[in-house]
């Protein structure tokens, strides 16, 4: 029964929350397809906000909901649930917050191989494994995912340049969720 609720509880999590609020600071026509793509990325990745620049166009998409609560009576859910993940003590600015114009350009996402908590650094005091613009080789360590005190290295599947980091340090991730984009 609990297992069933776990499965049921997980699925709606990525899409929980209000529709993303769209703030644009544009000086020319807005690329609606780009906005739609960003909004989907925001929901898929559980990020709080994404900001991009393309030419002199700048778009910022913010999601207001932070809760991951389910209401009682949801299909197959035994009880309302909340998934809580660890956050590191340090509050250093993350690369995701500074992701800019490269975000929606070409490149392949790196998916999370398991459910857990993503870390961008080996310990709260350590330097991040990678930053936006970092050149990586196939097999380089780009992230850690902790699940039940098991630490799993996430390696770059290919050589390239990190163009977007789609999770914050200490953020919960679901199976298959895009972690970063490597061009």
């Amino acid at each position, binding site marked *: 029964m609990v297992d069933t609720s776990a499965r049921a509880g997980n699925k709606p999590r990525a899409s929980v929350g209000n529709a993303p609020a769209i703030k644009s600071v544009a000086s020319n026509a807005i690329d609606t397809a780009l906005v739609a793509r960003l909004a989907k990325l925001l929901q898929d990745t559980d990020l709080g906000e994404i900001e991009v620049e393309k030419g002199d166009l700048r778009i910022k998409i913010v999601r207001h909901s932070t809760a991951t609560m389910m209401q009682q009576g949801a299909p197959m859910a035994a009880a309302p649930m909340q998934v809580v993940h660890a956050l590191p003590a340090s509050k250093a600015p993350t690369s995701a917050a500074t992701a800019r114009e490269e975000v929606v350009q070409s490149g392949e996402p790196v998916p999370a191989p398991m459910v857990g908590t993503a870390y961008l650094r080996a*310990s709260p005091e350590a330097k991040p494994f990678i930053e936006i613009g970092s050149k990586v080789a196939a097999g380089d360590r780009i992230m850690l995912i902790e699940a039940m005190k098991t630490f799993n290295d996430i390696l770059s599947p290919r050589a390239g340049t990190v163009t977007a980091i789609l999770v914050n340090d200490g953020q919960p991730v679901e199976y298959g969720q895009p972690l970063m984009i490597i061009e």
Partner: protein
Amino acid sequence: MIEHHQRLGSTNDEALRRAREGARGPLFIIADEQFAGRGRHGKVWQAPPGNLNISLLLTNPAPVAQLPELGFVAGVAVHGALCETLRDAQVTAALKIKWPNDIVHHGAKLSGLMLEAHQVQHGVQACIIGIGINCRAIPDGLPYGATHLAALAGRAVEAAEVAPHLIAALGREIALHGGGAGFAGIRQRWLARAAGLGTMVSVDTGSARRSGIFQTIDMHGRLVLVMDGVEARFDAGDVFLNPSANTATSRKELESQ
């Protein structure tokens, strides 16, 4: 294969080094002395002389998404090994597994685990289970209660006495896990030995501390707490047991919900 070293920085680091050199395991690395032991997320694991420091290297022991289950497999194995070492039923009845895999005696920590998974080559996932057991000493200045086997047994307990029990128990539980197909059985064995099940516990996630009734672990091994009718699940964090909790009473409360 079992390797015994007098002194190593970290048995986990040595196991990883060997995996990168081509070792595929099962390989046990034991060190009498470990001077750079590591704990969760950059914490130091102190290992005073006389305690057991051991790492087990396995290759592709389960699908990647199920590797965290090995922590529960190892937790049940360490519990079994400590029961076989201590034998006294009165003492072993109070040995429990604190989520996800510390062994405690009336809440005092006896052993700790840290697991790491590294892809050492395409398609080759090295999984390293690092285990530290307090045989005759506890480190100074710990922020939590701890004890050691000699104190519980009322006699000297050597690391060399515990190691064979542990190696056998790991083999047994890994076989039960069956590469992931048997996790439901491991989960049941874990729950039967769980510390604080049905009582109020707290979880410190690094950014916040949350309390609730410890209801169960889910199909992934996540800790399930219930607070005011709301269920919360945790995949990372430090658990604090309530020393005054009465398990029987709390279980009744849980059933009446």
